[in-house]
C-alpha cells in the first residue's frame, strides 16, 4: 500500500526531503518507522518519537491503511 510521510526538523535533514510517498508492506507505524529509520539513518529510538496518522496523534500499533498520511515527531522544541 502507499503511505505518505511528512518529515520535520532533523528528520527532514536526514531524509533529505520534507515528504515522500512510499510503497510499503508495513502494517503499523512501528514497522514503518523501523523501515524509514533504517533507510534514512534516523538517530531517534521509537521511545523518543511520537506518531501522527492523518493529523492526529496515534499509537505505534495502529493499523495503517492505503493513503494514510504518517508523521514521525522527533522531540519538540517550541516556546
Amino acid at each position: 500500500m502507499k503511505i505518505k510521510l511528512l518529515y520535520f526538523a532533523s528528520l527532514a535533514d536526514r531524509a533529505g526531503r520534507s515528504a515522500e510517498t512510499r510503497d510499503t508492506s508495513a502494517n503499523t507505524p512501528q514497522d514503518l518507522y523501523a523501515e524509514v529509520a533504517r533507510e534514512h539513518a534516523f538517530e531517534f529510538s521509537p521511545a523518543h518519537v511520537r506518531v501522527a496518522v492523518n493529523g492526529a496523534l496515534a499509537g505505534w500499533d495502529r493499523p495503517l491503511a492505503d493513503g494514510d498520511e504518517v508523521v514521525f515527531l522527533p522531540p519538540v522544541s517550541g516556546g
Partner: protein
Amino acid sequence: MKRFELRDAPIDAAAERSGLEHPAAGGCVTFEGWVRDHNDARAVTRLDYQAYGPLAEKEGAAILDEACGRFELRAARCVHRVGALAIGEMAVWVGVSADHRDAAFAACRWIIDEVKRRVPIWKNEHYADGESGWLHPSA
C-alpha cells in the same frame, strides 16, 4: 479569534491582551518568550521555527481547553511564531485572565510548559560560527 494560533508575522502583545478582557476578570498574566542571543554558551544569531501545522493547532487548542478545566479562568490564549526570527523577537505569547491571581499565575505557567512539551514545533538555531542545528531536547 482562534485561541491557539501559529503565526508567520510579528506578535503584537497589546492586541493579544485585549482578547483576554472579561468583566468578571480581576487580572491577567501573560508570558512572552523572546529569541535570545545565546544557548548553552553558544552565540546565536537567529532562529527558524517549523511546525506540523494541523497537529500543532489541534494540540495547542487541547492544552488551552485543559487549562480551562484545571484552573478557574475567564480566558486563555496562545500565539506561537513560525518561520525566521531575529534576536529579540517574540517567539511565543501566552495570556490568561481570571477572577483571582493565583489561578492566573498557575495557569500561565502550566500552559507554556505544556506547549513546550507537547506541541509539534521545532527550533533551528543558527550560530555565530555559521553552523546550525535543530533542537530535540531530552533525546
